[in-house]
């Protein structure tokens, strides 16, 4: 393994470009978490970091270690495969949990369940709560 100061300049510039580019894309995604209004809209933002942000950072990593060890280092592809397979599962779980709760609360912002089995039972407290809200208006 060579020392860091032997690292060629062209490769250093490319690696920096990939890593900084990937970090910038991930930052935009995190900014989306801050700026987007509803929960469902916010679920779209972190996918930026999990797709292109991850991809460019891994390209930088593969390039750096390939040049440093003067042999192709490609096992970063495993990180890409496992992140791509697991992130959507988490996002779908979160979004479906939100949808289930919104439907249970009878929220008008989400499409209603099309079949009865899908619809969660309205909690008894929903009526009590609306009574409590009346005097407030």
């Amino acid at each position, binding site marked *: 393994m060579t020392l860091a100061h032997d690292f060629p300049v062209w490769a250093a510039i490319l690696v920096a470009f990939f890593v900084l580019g990937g970090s910038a894309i991930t930052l935009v995604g995190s*900014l989306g978490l801050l700026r987007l*209004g509803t929960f*469902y809209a916010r679920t779209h*933002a972190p996918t930026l970091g*999990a797709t292109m942000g991850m991809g460019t950072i891994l390209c930088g990593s593969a390039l750096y270690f390939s040049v440093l060890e003067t042999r192709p280092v490609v096992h970063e592809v495993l990180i890409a495969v496992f992140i791509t397979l697991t992130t959507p599962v988490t*996002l779908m779980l979160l979004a479906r949990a939100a*949808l289930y709760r919104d439907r249970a609360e009878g929220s008008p912002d989400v499409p209603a369940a*099309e079949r009865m089995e899908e619809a969660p039972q309205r909690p008894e407290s929903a009526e009590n709560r609306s009574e409590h809200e009346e005097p407030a208006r």
Partner: protein
Amino acid sequence: MSWLLPYPLLTAALLALWLLLNQSVSPGQIILGSVLAILAAWMMAALRPQKPRIRRPVAVFRLAGIVLVDIVRSNLAVGTIILSARKPGLNAGFMTIPLDMKSPQGLAVLSIIITSTPGTIWLNYDAAKGTLLLHVLDLVDETVWIRTIKGRYERLLMEIFE
């Protein structure tokens, strides 16, 4: 041969995983990896998962290419919305798409494609009606999204799995 390799694709994928993790293609690692991959496939056989049949391997690569291009394009689109829209997420909304595909493996792959593409998320699939509920960040024209998902992904997935 099928008693030795009940799930040949799984065995091959596990062997590739082993060789990548060890960063070596020496004969010793290939033998060790093969033994482990075959044992793991036997354990998997005890669960009797449904065996996917990949009919057109060429279509797999075409689909992967299309999805890669679409992911880059949606990254740019969603990034632009987050950075430049005065009130981002104003166009966000739910939509329903009728699907013709019934294959569970095809639907699983479609759910991963749709959710990992920025700007769309898979919410609910109604197996009885064959409809899919989506949430889309930039819902200006529903027909564009229906054309993308049915024309670009579902058609290829049906070629592969059905």
